[in-house]
């Protein structure tokens, strides 16, 4: 199962990665090799096997609903690239 350039661009789009042409070529070739290797999982017939999403059999890890002080706003913004008042400043969305 090989990924072609079009699929690669689609996946990059889903992953919000602006890959340059040179990267598309290099990563594309490597990804196909890796995909080839991991496709080994399809050799097994596992129709009746349940999936494991988590290694511990924990069910309903409840916590008391105790109100706490949130992070101070200056801490929240301490690492932000751009702040405007109490908002993160970003370029226009459209």
């Amino acid at each position, binding site marked *: 199962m090989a990924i072609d350039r079009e699929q690669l661009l689609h996946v990059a789009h889903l*992953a*919000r990665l602006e890959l340059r042409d040179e990267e598309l070529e290099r990563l594309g070739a490597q990804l196909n090799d890796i995909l080839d290797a991991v496709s080994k999982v399809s050799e097994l017939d596992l129709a009746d096997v349940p999936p*494991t999403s988590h290694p511990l059999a924990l069910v309903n890890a409840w916590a008391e609903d105790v109100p706490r002080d949130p992070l101070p706003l200056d801490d929240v913004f301490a690492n932000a690239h751009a702040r405007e008042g109490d908002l993160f400043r970003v370029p226009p969305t459209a």
Partner: protein
Amino acid sequence: MSAIVDTLRLTAEEAIGLVERGDVSATELHAAYLDAIEERDAELHAYLRTVDEADGTSIPIALKDVISTKGVETTAGSKILSGYVPVFDATVATRCRDAGLTLLGKTNTDEFAMGSSTENSAFGPSRNPWDPSLVPGGSGGGTSAAVTAGLAPWGLGSDTGGSIKQPSALCGNVGLRPTYGTVSRYGVVAFASSLDQVGPVAKNVRDVALLYSIIAGRDPEDSTTVELPGAVVLPQEDRLEGLRVGVPRQATELEAIEPGVRAAFDVALTRLEELGAEVGECELPRAFDYGIACYYLIATAEASSNLARYDGVRYGPRSEGTTYREMVERTRDEGFGDEPKRRIMLGTYALSAGYYDAYYGQAQKVRTLIVREHADVFGRFDVLATPTSPTVAFPIGHKAADPLAMYACDLLTIPSCLAGLPGLNVPCGFSEGLPVGLQLIGPQLSENTLFRAGHALERSLGLDLVPERLRT
């Protein structure tokens, strides 16, 4: 100041003794390690940054740079987090602080802990204290190199598929990947959440057990954590009567295992028998045939989700763009290195419409088989033993251009990680003058058994684990 103590050979337990008896102060000890770092780390690059002043009353500790430390830059080895200064401590950092430990510095790692050599660090590779032309393993090569070179008495790493155990094997020290859920992940930069575990690295098994006792236990901030069933026992016994050790045939028959590694491993097995353990063969066919494929689907799927948060908005550098979307895509392209990009792409693909069932869904079912296989063998054995790494430390650059060759470094460490099992690397000999590690795997929450077995083995082998070139 470095004349006060020989940091090359000082164990954490001995160091604590020195401080408690008042032979040396926490400040002096901190300074002695900084001197050692000054002397040797230009070559090794184990640390990304150090902390000048001791802020505790006990001995120092090195923390892998995926562990958030309030007020101290934490980058996860990535350009996309350069300049990021956490405003809170990870729970494990808090617990170390509460125990009086002083933060010595943050250690190098493959970017987002993705790698087996630290060559994927955006800030340059770390080097192996036994031979600086070789890798120290990864992703926790920084912590491991620091412990072996006497640049920290002990440290914390994080392990997703072998990032504690494999560097410990390649540098010749002891590293524990704890049972999933016994150590909090709160404040630890996430790679693959169903696999990531923080764990201790030190010169011997008792130190590892001691540090585990400091960091382990339920944390209300991480709902996947559990309380330990009993206290951590610092191992003392030298005999292993009654211990049943299983050796998975598939793990020892792998072609990838170097003859010198196999030879050292075989000697250690004989030693375990001489100590009174019963050693027998067992089978884990699916775990070793399908483990890597299963892991690289599950870990990358989880990584693609976890790494979605790096968008140039709340933290990290931002690349310019005329729209929000352009800014985000450019920030991620320029901020992530190749390995995170490969894994984000693979994980996104494995989770995307039309491919989910065939890849991610199927991998989760394979994971069930691997869990069951391990449960079966633990009906007959108390622990399993395999070599930790198929090879000794390899030259820098040797596998850097071939992702699949790099992934194969974790062939032996990955299966038990998928099953959430604890694993302990114990040095078991040398090949070509380089350390070889033996991996002990136990059922969930069996850390005390691993400590007991590892302690008896290391005491009996009595290896000198200070690299020859550093001995004075």
